[in-house]
């Protein structure tokens, strides 16, 4: 039963990670930017849901309100900072978003205080196998909403004009520009969509876990890791790798102890990077 509990917990958690990672994969693929502030955008989204909860609105509505606000936050960040680094070296974008991350942490701390907070959904618990496996309904709700948003986004990317423009820009920005795509607008929208996805995830995290101004970085690292494993623009890959990471974390927690939970994610990241490099170098030799 413990194993089943770990697998289910991990899967539900992993779907949520995958949603954050999908946003990262999207903007990385389109704009070639690694956004270190990803986790901080998530936390900011969480605060929006938390404040709704404080004012008596059910925090679940945060999954609608938060992405709308966060979309505009994303576009503003793009206009102020990201558009100046979008065509530059990857290292410059990492530095710029690292700066945004620090700024966001301090601003959130200043505006919302350093208390750890959460929003109670009052959703209760689903009990299986005579109460030996318990699944909080808030986690099930989070996973469900994450899947809905992920599917919605895939459809939007395939069917809408903007979605097609985003995909065209991702494939070849120069060609897209020549063919009349306003890449500047596409970049702004991509960053906005990423921030909106972070907003949804943040609202879900405020319902399922806790939020705090300095809690963003672990979410950035997890999404970075998921994208590295799955590769850019590979949505099923992101979903699978997200769920895999969720289950991996839960098992690491059971077997090695909670203190190694985040550490094991780092270790996995290093192992995967080493493995990839090894694979690539072998390919290079073959081509010789």
């Amino acid at each position, binding site marked *: 039963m413990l194993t089943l509990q770990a697998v289910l917990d991990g899967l539900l958690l992993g779907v949520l990670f995958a949603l954050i990672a999908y946003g990262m994969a999207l903007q990385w693929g389109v704009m070639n930017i690694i956004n270190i502030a990803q986790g901080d955008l998530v936390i900011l989204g969480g605060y929006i849901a938390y404040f709704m909860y404080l004012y008596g609105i059910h925090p679940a509505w945060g999954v609608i309100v938060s992405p709308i606000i966060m979309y505009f936050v994303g576009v503003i960040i793009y206009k102020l900072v990201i558009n100046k680094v979008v065509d530059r070296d990857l290292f410059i974008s990492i530095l710029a978003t690292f700066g945004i991350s620090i700024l966001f942490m301090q601003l959130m*701390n200043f505006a919302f205080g*350093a208390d750890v*907070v*959460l929003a*109670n959904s009052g959703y209760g618990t689903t009990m299986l196998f005579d109460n030996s496996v318990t699944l*909080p309904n808030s986690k099930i709700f989070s996973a469900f909403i994450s899947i809905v948003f992920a599917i919605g986004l895939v459809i939007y990317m395939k069917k809408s004009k903007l979605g097609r423009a985003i995909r065209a820009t991702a494939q070849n920005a120069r060609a897209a520009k020549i063919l009349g795509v306003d890449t500047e607008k596409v970049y702004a929208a991509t960053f906005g969509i990423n921030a909106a996805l972070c907003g949804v995830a943040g609202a879900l995290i405020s319902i399922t876990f806790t939020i705090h101004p300095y809690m963003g970085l*672990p979410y950035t690292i997890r999404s970075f890791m998921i994208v590295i494993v799955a590769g850019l623009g590979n949505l099923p890959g992101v979903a699978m790798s997200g769920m895999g990471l969720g289950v991996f974390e839960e098992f690491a927690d059971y077997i090695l102890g909670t203190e190694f939970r985040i550490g094991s994610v780092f270790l996995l990241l290093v192992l995967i990077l080493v493995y990839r490099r090894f694979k690539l170098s072998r390919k290079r030799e073959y081509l010789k």
Partner: protein
Amino acid sequence: MKIKNIIITFVSAIAILFSTSVVSLAKVVGDKIILGAAISLTGKYSSNGVHTQNGYNMAVDRINDMGGIKVGGKTYKFDIIYYDDESNPKRAAQLAERLISQDGVEFMLGPYSSGLTKAIAPVTEKYGVPMVEANGASRSLFTKGYKYLFAVLAPANLYLDVAIETAVELNGGKGVRIAQAFEQDAFSQDVRLGILDAAERTGSKIIIDDKLPKELNDMAATLAKVKAVKPDVLVVSGHTKGALTAIRQIAEMKVDVPMLAMTHCDAAKLSKQHGKNSQYALCASQWHKTLTYKDDFFKDGMTYAADFEKLFGYDPPYQSAESSAALLVFKDAFERANSFDQKKVRDALADTNMQTFYGNIKFAEGGQNVDKPMVLFQVMCDDSGKCENKVVAPLKWASAELIHPIPKWSER
């Protein structure tokens, strides 16, 4: 070249003049005794930093209004120079250095948290500056042989051993089975050591001993293990995140344990954030307003709480109460030393033996307060869902009877 020399001389003269005038501002100016404090006003400890500052300020105003401090037949008033340490130990140490060597402060108040106190203590020790601190409880602070550090609070290893002793007592004197999860910071690990001592003393067994990460927001795995092995007591210490996460997930996963003991419940505003789900949790606290200790300045805990709320608009957490007590200790020591000589004040502090609204204060060799036991309160809720913290142990101070074992989730 000549002009350059003149400018350099002029600038250095001004610099020297300025620095001496700053130093002369130090210690006692006119009728003011100037204390220095680095406090976390921004960064991750800012909430508790503000509680600390409010506690200090309230005591300064109260002591000044009630006649100040009498030294050598003259009356003095307290004043505090604050700097924001940004919740950063390195910055705190730099600021302590600045307070002492630039601002000329000769008496210090402590920062918030064990980590920051650990960073400042070597500096105050180096300069022989007496520091009364109210928010650093880590045992390691009191084993380094510091001569100028005095803490009004009980050390961290005593936080939860009352809980284990109570559980053993309720078990007919037989040892209990303990599951514990502690964050990996100096404070929580000291609380853990206290539990290990208590377990050994009482013949209890530790069956789960998890360490929680700093970025903790999911304890599902630990709780699943707890559910499987059914311990008699579950102990959790991981600052406010630990308390909030544990209560949320215990309720969600319907984990039944006869006793749940934690730290940082009031800092986490547990009963406010979780309502009835936090019911029956036992919380270690340095102070509670219903305790009946008395002094001439704040009368008792209830009066202190009412006055504090009038000033700052919220119920005082123990972090504020202990910070106020630090000023009472300083006042007492200055008057007994009847001097501003640091050595004499230090010796007077070491001889402190007094009662404040916050508790009795008497320092051991290492600087920790050995005359004030920890209290345990239990979150108790009425039918309307309104929850209150009631002191249940030690029995001498109890305002309600401990509810034990905690009713099962299926019966709630």
